[in-house]
């Protein structure tokens, strides 16, 4: 058959038109679209089966329960554990992106000496030399961990001092510890039983204590009600996130919170609004009004409001003896709804500042926040996972990252009940990193092992037969067949919660009303504050929204 030019054209046109009635062009278009989504420089998520593991967060001392989704052995998502009786599924905003922190551009991966790369051998030699010359201090940011027992054991055997850098929440509890003769590490707040909380600037709804504990309580008993079951009165110079959501907000002048607490105490005593007898505060209402910028009527109104719905609890963000004395006056010490003594005995740690800091060297644990800068001429060995900016550290020593180290998490500083978590090492420890406990064990191989210390703590809890272990369902400790089975549960992310503190377990005696010391001003704070290393996604909070001010890095 002869194919004419006309046939060829008709055939070509027919095929062209016909193709559009087949899936070919549409499939081609789809494939091209998908191809354009997969340029080589576009990162691809990991593939493979996803498994979920539970553990505890170690970013701060709050010990939040974490549910970690893992793919190809890497954490790819974090959420809270709704069955955790303390956090009830809540996490802080940073916790949701914490799995990205191990790849943070400021992650420390090599030893640095005065800014230059050095080796672990050099760091070890320098520390051994310092120990030989002495005296040396080891500073722990979260006492009570199994790793802390290694630091303590080293300190005891090598004539060095074991010191702690207390968190602001622990410092706020210090006056009760001194007046009551009890360890500060055993004190907490019974928020669940109180009906009025007077916060003297504590950011209760913005990162204070354990995320989820107070926020859930506030949400269930206070939010949106004009006459809430739980009254939150915020005393703070600026309209903070907590002040914005409080039932009442008072704005005294910055630094005058202590004076206001003393003035309120004076009103309570003068008008016989409380039955407790304490020494009279050395302040007059007129002077207090002048200092705080509030009227005398406002101070009186605040005092009446405090006792209207009891129990009432006053909370300070940091050490403030006047606020602590106010709690003594209000009868909020050692009672339900007040400052309580937890059942498990804790050691009384000595703060670093206690002995003037005359050391040859100071070794700082990676749990100590960056704003802790020892005011000393000592040689500073600073363990850290991320470079927190300018510091006075002579040696920067990289320590294991998030979820890279097996550790335990003791009770959070503000908790009313004892808790114990084990944070498993879900990912392998990064090359070139060593924890402080591992570093000291290299110097002295006879030091106790962290894993064994965790095991013996679990045995200790098992022997008491008190409390319950909360996994998906709570199991009383007495129902476990062995300590090992209980430990296995804890290693899988369960949390042990002890029994509620006994009422009247401790009391404080005031010999005189504490002198009012002005609280730290924001301007003072800004000089020493170092921005923590945030997950990159935290930029959503301050750059791509106006929720928070951008963190400023401290100048080196």
């Amino acid at each position: 058959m002869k194919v004419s030019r006309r046939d060829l054209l008709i055939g070509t046109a027919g095929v062209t038109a016909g193709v559009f009635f087949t899936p070919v062009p549409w499939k081609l278009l789809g494939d091209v679209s998908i191809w354009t989504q997969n340029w080589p420089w576009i990162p691809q998520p990991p593939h493979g089966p996803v498994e979920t593991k539970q553990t505890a967060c170690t970013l701060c001392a709050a010990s939040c329960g974490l549910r970690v989704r893992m793919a190809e052995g890497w954490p790819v998502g974090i959420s809270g554990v709704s069955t955790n009786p303390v956090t009830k599924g809540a996490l802080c905003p940073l916790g949701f992106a914490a799995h990205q922190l191990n790849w943070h551009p400021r992650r420390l991966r090599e030893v640095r000496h005065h800014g230059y790369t050095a080796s672990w051998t050099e760091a070890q030699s320098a520390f051994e030399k310092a120990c030989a010359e002495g005296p040396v201090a080891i500073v722990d940011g979260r006492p009570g961990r199994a790793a802390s027992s290694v630091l303590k054991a080293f300190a005891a055997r090598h004539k060095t001092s074991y010191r702690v850098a207390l968190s602001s929440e622990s410092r706020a509890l210090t006056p009760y510890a001194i007046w009551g003769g009890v360890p500060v590490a055993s004190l907490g707040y019974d928020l669940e039983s109180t009906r009025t909380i007077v916060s003297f600037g504590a950011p209760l709804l913005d990162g204070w204590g354990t995320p989820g504990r107070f926020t859930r309580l506030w949400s269930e008993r206070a939010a949106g009600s004009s006459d809430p079951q739980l009254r939150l009165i915020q005393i703070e110079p600026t309209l903070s996130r907590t002040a914005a959501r409080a039932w009442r907000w008072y704005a005294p002048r910055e630094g005058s919170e202590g004076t206001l607490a003393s003035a309120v105490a004076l009103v309570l005593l003068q008008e016989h609004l409380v039955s407790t007898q304490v020494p009279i505060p050395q302040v007059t209402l007129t002077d207090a009004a002048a200092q705080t910028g509030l009227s005398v009527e406002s101070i009186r109104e605040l005092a009446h409001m405090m006792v209207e719905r009891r129990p009432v609890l006053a909370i300070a963000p940091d050490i403030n003896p006047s606020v602590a004395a106010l709690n003594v006056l209000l009868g909020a010490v050692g009672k339900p709804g007040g400052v309580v003594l937890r059942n498990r005995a804790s050691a009384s740690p000595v703060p670093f500042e206690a002995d003037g800091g005359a050391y040859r060297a100071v070794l700082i644990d990676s749990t100590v926040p960056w704003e802790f800068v020892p005011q000393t001429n000592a040689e500073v060995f600073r363990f850290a996972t991320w470079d927190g900016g300018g510091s006075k550290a002579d040696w920067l020593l990289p320590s294991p990252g998030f979820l890279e180290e097996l550790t335990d998490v003791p009770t959070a500083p503000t908790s009313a009940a004892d808790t114990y978590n084990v944070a498993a090492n879900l990912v392998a420890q990064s090359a070139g990193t060593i924890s402080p406990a591992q570093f000291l064990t290299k110097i002295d191989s006879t030091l106790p092992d962290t894993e064994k210390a965790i095991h013996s703590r679990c045995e200790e809890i098992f022997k008491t037969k008190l409390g319950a272990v909360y996994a998906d369902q709570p199991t009383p400790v007495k129902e476990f067949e062995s300590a090992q089975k209980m430990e296995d549960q804890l290693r899988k992310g369960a949390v042990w919660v002890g029994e509620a503190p006994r009422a009247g377990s401790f009391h404080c005696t005031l010999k005189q009303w504490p002198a009012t010391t002005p609280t730290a001003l924001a301007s003072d704070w800004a000089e020493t504050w170092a921005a923590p290393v945030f997950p990159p996604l935290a930029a959503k909070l301050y750059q791509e929204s106006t929720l928070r001010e951008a963190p400023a890095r401290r100048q080196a």
Partner: protein
Amino acid sequence: MIARYGMVIDLDRCTGCGACMIACAAENNVPPEPPRATPRTGITPMLVRALSNGRDGADRREAFIPITCMQCENETPCVAVCPQQAVEVDKSTGIVMQIPQRCLGCRYCMTACPYHARYFNWWDPQWPPGMEKSLNPGVSVRMRGVVEKCNLCHTRFHGAEEKAAVAGRKEIDPADYIPACVEACPTGAILFGNLADPNDPVTLAAHSPDSFRLLERIGTEPKIHYKTTQDWIRALADKNANHPTEAQHV
């Protein structure tokens, strides 16, 4: 059963902590934005904005409003304008789906959205070296030049469907499908559920006298409801939806 997924956000319980924003970004593989990104050029499928009553001193009050795709049910504006059919309303769930593979980046949908809840990928997605290992395997990374928005964590919905299929069920277990922002909220301010189910807590909350929807007068029937007992917040919420980048006062 045909579902209509939606939310009721209790503004009286929102503390503006931002956990929903971070959890959303981590779940949906949103990259960290370059330093030059702004609230409009960054990608925040869930964005919390601050509202103020505009008074001074102790009378001043602030509140926070999380804004996300409103999942419009009626005459969905972004669907109507998209020349690529890159936006579709899933008939079985009511979820307004953005399909980035089809998007050509014309941004008509961004102009059409009355709630300013859509975001354009101005930059190639980039993470610090190694951080791509932390990405969620269930969500593909979007490239530069396409629009994105909240799709109520549709990957989680697929996961719940798969789980139901394995168990031989036709309906998903509501406990298996919870968007990341709902799960993350520490005060439980965000209630999520099926608005087509009259007994679902979210439906009951949506019909409470304190609930309202943004720009209700334009008739798009959003499936995101808000709730507050305070009139000034209610009044400002609408104003904020229209002018998201301006400071909002009564």
